[in-house]
């Protein structure tokens, strides 16, 4: 069986859902060890150990690993990966930052965004903003290095018995040319965009930051996470971490409600795996209607309050 190393994305205390989803893909390829780089990230390591498909968790514990810096983690990861046939990371911004740096150190080509396993060396991945799917094969005797498209895999279940956690101390010298300064997270207690089953998203059609409050209200009455188009982020209605699409988040909720979003291909690539797509737009010819399962043509300023009322009474 192939030996697989999966890089965990975590915040020290818990795992990012991208990790639990990538583990589904990893486990289909072989026996998986999960690498948790951190500083006292024991909780995240235990969370990884509690997942079905994790054979072992390697907690690489040193003070320099407190912040998720690719320049520091990549050389440690590449060294650890030497004994493995497959090295995977989730296609989160962390995985995308670290993995190519490790791949280059290993002299291996990287596949970005595996969406489907064809066989143990052959994979499907999206190109051209998801408008084309290409099948690529890793040549024999070459390590498989790949990121896993998060929306294409479901999270693994909890394991019956947890896997062992091994703490690894390394003293390899690390560069000091990169300093982590801060993270400005928009946070809040709404559901997480990447794992939510329902998402309400707003676009330029909202017209202002004030009006965008309607989207938050509707989302709250649905228990939904909030997303946005690039135009809405660029215009400053909402922060960048809400952007859905080619350069934002790729998501797969059961229900996606796009309000005042035209449906540019770069946006649609982010929601291709959604269950039911609803579009509310005043332009009946907007491209979003080509992909929407349910379309409602009309003025969002009228429809959204009405919708919210209907949900409240319903």
């Amino acid at each position, binding site marked *: 069986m192939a030996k697989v190393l999966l890089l965990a994305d975590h915040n020290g205390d818990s795992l990012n859902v991208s990790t639990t989803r990538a583990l589904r893909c990893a486990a289909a390829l072989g026996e998986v060890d999960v690498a948790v780089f951190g500083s006292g990230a024991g909780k995240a390591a235990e969370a990884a150990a509690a997942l079905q498909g994790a054979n072992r968790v390697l907690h690489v514990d040193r003070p320099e690993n407190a912040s998720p810096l690719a320049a520091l983690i990549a050389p440690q990861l590449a060294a650890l990966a030497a004994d493995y046939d497959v090295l995977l990371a989730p296609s989160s911004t962390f995985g995308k930052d670290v993995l190519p740096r490790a791949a280059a150190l290993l002299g291996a080509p*990287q596949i970005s965004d595996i969406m489907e396993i064809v066989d143990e060396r052959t994979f499907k991945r999206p190109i051209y903003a998801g*408008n084309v799917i290409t099948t690529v094969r890793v040549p024999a005797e070459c390590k498989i290095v790949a990121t896993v498209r998060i929306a294409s895999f479901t999270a693994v279940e909890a394991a019956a018995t947890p896997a062992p956690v091994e703490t690894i101390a390394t003293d390899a010298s690390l560069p000091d040319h990169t300093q982590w300064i801060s993270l400005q997270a928009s946070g809040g207690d709404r559901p997480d965009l990447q794992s939510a089953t329902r998402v309400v998203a707003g676009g330029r059609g909202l017209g202002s930051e004030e009006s965008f409050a309607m989207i938050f209200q509707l989302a709250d009455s649905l228990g939904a996470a909030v997303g946005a188009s690039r135009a809405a982020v660029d215009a400053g209605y909402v922060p960048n971490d809400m952007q859905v699409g080619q350069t934002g988040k790729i998501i797969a909720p059961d229900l996606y409600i796009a309000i005042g979003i035209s449906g540019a291909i770069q946006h649609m690539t982010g929601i291709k795996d959604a269950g039911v797509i609803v579009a509310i737009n005043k332009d009946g010819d907007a491209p979003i209607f080509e*992909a929407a399962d349910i379309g409602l043509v009309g003025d969002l300023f009228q429809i959204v309050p009405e919708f919210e009322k209907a949900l409240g009474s319903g």
Partner: protein
Amino acid sequence: MKVLVGIKRVIDYNVRVQINREGTDVIKEGVKMSINPFDEIAVEAALRMKEAGQATEVVVVSIGPGAAQQQLRTALAMGADRATLLETDDEVQPLAAARALMNLVEKEQPGLVLLGKQAIDDDANQVGQMMAALWDKPQATFVSGLELDGGRIRAVREVDAGLETVEITLPAVVTVDLRLNEPRFVKMPDIMKAKRKPLETIAFSELGIEMPPRLESLGCEPPPSRSGGVKVDSVDALVATLKDKGVL
């Protein structure tokens, strides 16, 4: 400080790409080609550094067919000082591209390399990180804010959780995101002027780089299409349909 900017010739982002009949590739003939939008932002960032007196020279480089001279000329018209084309008709995968760019870095000794965070054709998002690894220098990826201060850069990165700030020392590789700036439009006189700026062509095969293993492409297909939906004419009908589908 010299700034090296990588630009890639790609199918314009407005084009609806088509797969060829053999299912081996997308159709590139007769299709509008442009500078990868992320790379255009990298060029703009470099030019602003030069205008602010922080950079002395902006060199643009592309790996691609002879026709990529068009995109290099556009970058020169935007204000870059000179251009290099590493010419090849073959598809160059990210690790090979990173090695080729490193070859140029050794020659040019730039203080900063600016690239787009990904190319909108292969959407790989790898070259910058790979270059930084091979160069053994810091990287700041997905950058939407950039402040140069002597030998250091303070970069704001767009990450899943929000905005992350890091500080790196130069030389370094920075890959840029869309919100960093809005690239300038080129004006006619600048296009004329750009024709006289130096553009050097080097055959990719003559760089003598060690070619890494290649991922083999087994073909292309369209994504699974979503079946056509329905239009409803009222909020009540919307709610009813959602309940029907079991998502409410």
